[in-house]
Every structure is written in C-alpha cells, then in structure tokens.
C-alpha cells in the first residue's frame, strides 16, 4: 500500500512537471538567449564575454551543488592541461609587487581603463599580510602560507598553478583562472607566488 501511494505521488509529480513548466535544459537555453538580448557591449567588456566555455557551462549547470566525482575529475584534468609554467623555470618574483597586485581591484571591468592596471584583487577574498585588515573571506586565509607548508619547489608549483588555473585543483572553484583567462601576466603570477612563498614576505613573517 505504501508503494501504491508512492507510485501515485510520483505519477502526479511527473504529470504535473510535464504540464506546467519547460525542462531544465530548455530553461538554460532560454536564459542564454535572454542574456544575449539583455546586455550591450561597453568598452572592453564585449558581448562575447557571455559565451561560456565548457568549464563555465558545466559549473553553471550544477548550480552551486556538488559535482559528481567523475565530472569534477574530468573538469580538473581539462584545466590542469592548460597550465603553462614559466619557460625559465623560475616560479617566484618580487613579493612587493605581489602585494600591490593583491591589493589592486581594477581590471577588465567596463569602467576600467583598458590600458590601466589589472590586479588580482586577492584581498577581496583572502587574508594575506596581517597588516591589511580589510580582507574578505570567500577564500581561505593565506596568512603564513609558506611558513606553514614549507617553501619547497612542489609547493611553489602548486601555488603558481593554482593562480594560473584554480579549476585544475578544485572543479568549479570561485577563484578566477588568472593565467588561463589572460587576466594576469606570467610575471604578475610569479610576483603573487612570491607573496605567498617568499620567507621575507609579510604573509610569512
């Protein structure tokens, strides 16, 4: 009898779902079309920014919910393959520049000067140097990053790679793919790596 009730409920649900609203896929399609007609290009922010790559599409589809293991693995593999390490093999630059890049919030907005500075805006989401009190909490605290983990080459590679393409290590991360999407230059990523990995950096002192 319990089964019969359940079956009836499921049937009612299925019928209800069919009659009233379009499927999830259809809605995603409608949303994409609606977005195209609802935005206009402004300066450097052109309409092609609405076009999603596979990573963006899949992450949007799962709507903030945990990805199935195989999907996550596939995405991470796909993104890991994009990471380009510096040809000179040196992964760290100047932490002083890194601090400036971490503070800089401008870049890529339609209100920004296209020839002006582009920063990482790291403090928007992370605690780094303890002197900066106005830090965000979307990402984990990176205070004492190198000091706690050691300054070894493997960790340096991880940091450089994580900034270059965080999706390689955590599918659908909130963090931008600074290298892969061309937000920051190789030198800027080296400087940020130094901010986390240089023993002299305020992050580690």
């Amino acid at each position, binding site marked *: 009898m319990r089964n019969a009730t359940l079956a009836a409920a499921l049937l009612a649900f299925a019928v209800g779902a069919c009659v009233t609203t379009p499927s999830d896929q259809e809605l995603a399609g409608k949303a994409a079309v609606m977005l195209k007609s609802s935005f206009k290009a402004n300066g450097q922010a052109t309409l092609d920014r609405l076009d999603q790559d596979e990573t963006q599409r899949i992450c949007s589809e799962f709507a903030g919910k945990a990805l199935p293991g195989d999907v996550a693995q596939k995405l991470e593999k796909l993104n890991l393959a994009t990471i380009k390490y510096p040809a000179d093999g040196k992964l760290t630059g100047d932490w002083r520049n890194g601090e400036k890049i971490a*503070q*800089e*919030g*401008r870049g890529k907005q339609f*209100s*920004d000067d296209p020839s002006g500075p582009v*920063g990482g*805006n790291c403090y*928007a989401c992370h605690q780094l140097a303890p002197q900066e009190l*106005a830090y965000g909490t979307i990402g984990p605290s990176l205070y004492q990053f190198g000091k706690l983990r050691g300054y070894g080459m493997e960790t340096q590679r991880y940091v450089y790679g994580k900034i270059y393409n965080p999706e390689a290590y955590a599918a659908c991360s909130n963090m931008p793919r600074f290298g892969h999407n061309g937000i920051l230059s190789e030198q800027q990523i080296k400087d940020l790596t130094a901010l986390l990995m240089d023993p002299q950096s305020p992050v580690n002192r």
Partner: protein
Amino acid sequence: MNRGRRDALHKGSRATLLALVAAAGWLPSGAVRAQAWNKAAFDAHTLGDTMKALGGGEPTQSKDVAFFQTPEIAENGAVVPIGVSSSVPKTEAIAILIEKNPNMLAAVFDIPPGTEPTITTRVKMAQTSNVYALVRADGKYYVASKEIKVTLGGCGG
C-alpha cells in the same frame, strides 16, 4: 613655518597644540557671526592659521567637550557623522576641524542662548585624521579631539 606646524601636529601631541594656539594669538571673541562667511578661517591650511582667523582666546583641552554618535572608523570618508556637545556653561559656538583635510575648518555653529550646545552633522574626510571639536564659551575656548579612521570599502572597482 607652516610646514613645521603641521608636522608637529601629526605627532598628535596635545602640548604642541596648546603651544601653537597660544603662539598664534587669539583675537577677541565675536568674530564668528551669522550670515558672514569667514573666508580666512575656511581657507586656512594649518590649525594655527585657522584659529587665528577664527579669533578668540587660548583653548583649554576639556572633557566638557564631547563627541557623540561619532564612530572611530568611517566606512566611507565621503560621509562621516559627527556629533559634538558641550557642557561648558555659556557655550556660544561650536566648530569642527579636520586636521588632514586640505582646509582644516569644516563648520562653525553659532549657539544663541536657549539653543542646546549639541550639534549633529556629517563631514567629508580625505583620510584618517584627528578631528577637533572647538567650543567658545563666555569668550574662552575649549577643545577636544578624536581620531577617526577612514577605511577603503568594497570591491576595489
């Protein structure tokens, strides 16, 4: 000379403030008058020059001059709420000065008899700075100060 005054003030020393004001030489009271605008006072860049232009006697640092509804941190320097109240008898005027603004004097309020010596307004602050509440009462001057920190807000864009 002005430069030296400012540098001394940056150290936040109370003794220095009093010495400076004394040195500046205060004019008789009554220079703050309604419907006239004291250009010299508002144009002044240093505390000494501002007070000289305002006129008056030597200010005493006083706990009878108090800030209220005035936060220690302003999320945005464009609007900083300031409340000043005086419990000095015969308070005649209240002025607000911001040390590190391009021009120090922000506002002067004349308090006629019957009006409470309590004012709330909002000022702009260019950066973290000491703010002075200056009171004239029965021809004498009293002062209190408070540091207000101005933070950067938001998303950096």
